[in-house]
């Protein structure tokens, strides 16, 4: 049955469309200013802070002619705002300069390293979600029980322990003493020529190409760093799940659901969790972003060839272009995930969708 379009209805629909347009506009402003802000900060770090930005980029062993040429190229003679404009244009087209260490364009190095970090962060987040959410639900349902205490302890330790130290210890126990896992890197050197990665996500590629021995080896390499990151993800996610579930279980609609005669299981998992899922998805997205950051130290310990290791190596070698390029990439993904999670929240909550 269709609804007749009265003038009031048309007016309301127009207002809603305008509201949506305003929201889209606001979102675009947020995205643009945030990215510009990131570029401004890295510009500041790279150009304004160092006494001689050219030396910062080239290192102090470059011959004078190269230094002069690069100084011209970087346009350091021009006023700051012009430099910034050039910088932003270059960054947007992916030109982050050249790495002193590898003499490759920074973007190329990053493209090679990025899938490794992606795979690690994804592994950790999946672990954290699939173990963390049920744990959090159980802790909320059985308040002050053993499960609840365990979740609290896991959370406390997760917020207090230095990740690189825990990684080091884990390496000693599980690799050096027990030989259960493989180290370093992502894959044993024997597979270097027989395995052609497609996406760069080794687990996925190995399954896709049905190379089961590669899959097993890749798994043995990723399981320890991935579990380490997974633990931190788990600590955060289980704590937030518990908090959201406790909030939902106090609501009136839960009483109403019981009055309807629904089983407790159904109420917990299909009513309370379904409502808690709305902020929970945001939390999971934020945890993912956090793992991207946490990977910096983890990759250093496990010699995992991702962006984190790339940045720290470049740091040790004073390769500013590489460091800043890596910072921009991780920063962009981090910002992107944050904004995406905000969008996700609004789509999932029917109350905000209607606006």
């Amino acid at each position, binding site marked *: 049955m269709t609804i007749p379009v009265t003038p009031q209805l048309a007016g309301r629909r127009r207002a809603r469309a305008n509201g949506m347009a305003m929201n889209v506009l606001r979102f675009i402003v*947020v995205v643009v200013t945030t990215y510009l802000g990131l570029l401004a900060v890295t510009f500041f*770090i790279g150009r304004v802070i160092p006494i001689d930005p050219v030396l910062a980029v080239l290192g102090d062993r470059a011959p004078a002619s190269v230094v002069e040429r690069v100084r011209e190229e970087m346009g350091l003679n021009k006023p700051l705002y012009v430099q910034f404009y050039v910088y932003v244009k270059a960054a947007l087209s992916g030109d982050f300069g050249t790495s002193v260490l590898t003499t490759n364009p920074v973007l190329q190095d990053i493209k090679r390293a990025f899938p490794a970090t992606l795979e690690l962060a994804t592994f950790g987040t999946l672990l954290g979600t699939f173990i963390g959410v049920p744990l959090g639900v159980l802790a909320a349902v059985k308040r002050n029980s053993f499960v609840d205490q365990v979740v609290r302890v896991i959370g406390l330790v997760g917020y*207090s322990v230095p990740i*690189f*130290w825990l990684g080091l*210890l884990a390496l000693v126990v599980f690799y050096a003493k027990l030989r259960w896992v493989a180290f370093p890197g992502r894959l044993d050197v024997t597979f270097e020529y027989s395995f052609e990665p497609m996406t760069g996500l080794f687990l996925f590629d190995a399954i896709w190409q049905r190379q089961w021995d590669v899959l097993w080896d890749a798994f043995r390499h990723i399981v320890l760093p991935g579990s380490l990151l997974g633990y931190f993800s788990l600590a955060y996610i289980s704590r937030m799940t518990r908090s959201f579930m406790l909030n939902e279980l106090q609501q009136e609609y839960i009483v109403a659901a019981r009055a309807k005669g629904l089983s407790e299981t159904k109420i917990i998992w299909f009513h309370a969790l379904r409502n808690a899922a709305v902020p929970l998805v945001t939390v999971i997205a934020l945890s993912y972003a956090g793992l991207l*950051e946490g990977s910096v*130290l983890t990759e250093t310990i496990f010699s995992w060839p991702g962006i984190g290791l790339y940045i720290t190596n470049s740091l040790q070698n004073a390769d500013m272009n590489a460091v800043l390029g*890596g910072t921009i990439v991780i920063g962009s993904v*981090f910002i992107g995930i944050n904004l995406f999670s905000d969008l996700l929240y609004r789509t999932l909550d029917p109350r905000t969708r209607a606006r």
Partner: protein
Amino acid sequence: MSDIVNSPDFSRRAWLLSDRPATRMQARLGRAYTIWSRFAENRLALIGLGIILLLIFLAIFANVLAPYSPVQGDLRNARLMPPNAAHWFGTDDQGRDILSRLVFGSRLTLFVIFLVAIIAAPVGLIIGTVSGYAGGWVDAVLMRITDIFLAFPKLVLALALVAALGPGIENAVLAIAVTSWPPYARIARAETMTFRNSDFISAVKLMGASPFRIVLRHVMPLCLSSLIVRVTLDMAGIILTAAGLGFLGLGAQPPLPEWGAMIASGRRFILDQWWVATVPGIAILIVSLGFNLLGDGLRDALDPKEAGQ
């Protein structure tokens, strides 16, 4: 029965908890007492407080407590010794007593925490209260800047900043502080906006107070309690970030006994001389835990509504 009622403890407590305080000092003391008794009910919070007090104690009396020098080691005789009676936590590869290094390292830890708090919290407080009180485009601009900084990855940005500034503990502090202030601005702004339009602010305005004075003397004190809780909880994260920077060689430079750097230098010997890298990590863990417990306890004591969860 009358002895209990008339004893000095009972009457002091009644005085503190009285509904009708006669002086402002009495009201303040009474409120402090209520908060303290709520706090003290929580055993874990007391443990946290104890840890922090121990840290401060070690830092102040490091000279007296540490048995050996933290920077001078006996290279000839005492390299990489396991924990024993003379060296409770063993020695590192330069023959330095690890316990002494830990004790002196507490000073560096406190230094970092203190400076970051002193820099980041007031900056966040000022930005947040001004933004919340002024409203309008001032609010919009300041919040946009805050949100931009909030959206940045903290460790990575601190890394880049230290890379540009050069390694050193002061630069590490600056880098961490620059990335830490946004949450405080958000909290201060949220608190400010809850009572921006309330009657007591209007009353002070009617008395002719300038916005500057209103913000400084009336709005800011009210934001303090949530800010203190948040700062305490953040301390754990700041210690971990500082240790991470130290681990990468970007914090305090050798031979300073910074705990993160100690882990890095002990990494080479982790297999056989595990104590060199393990013990500093335990210290970091305990101190972070202390701040987390303390912060949780403060939050529950200052806002009992949250305590139920």
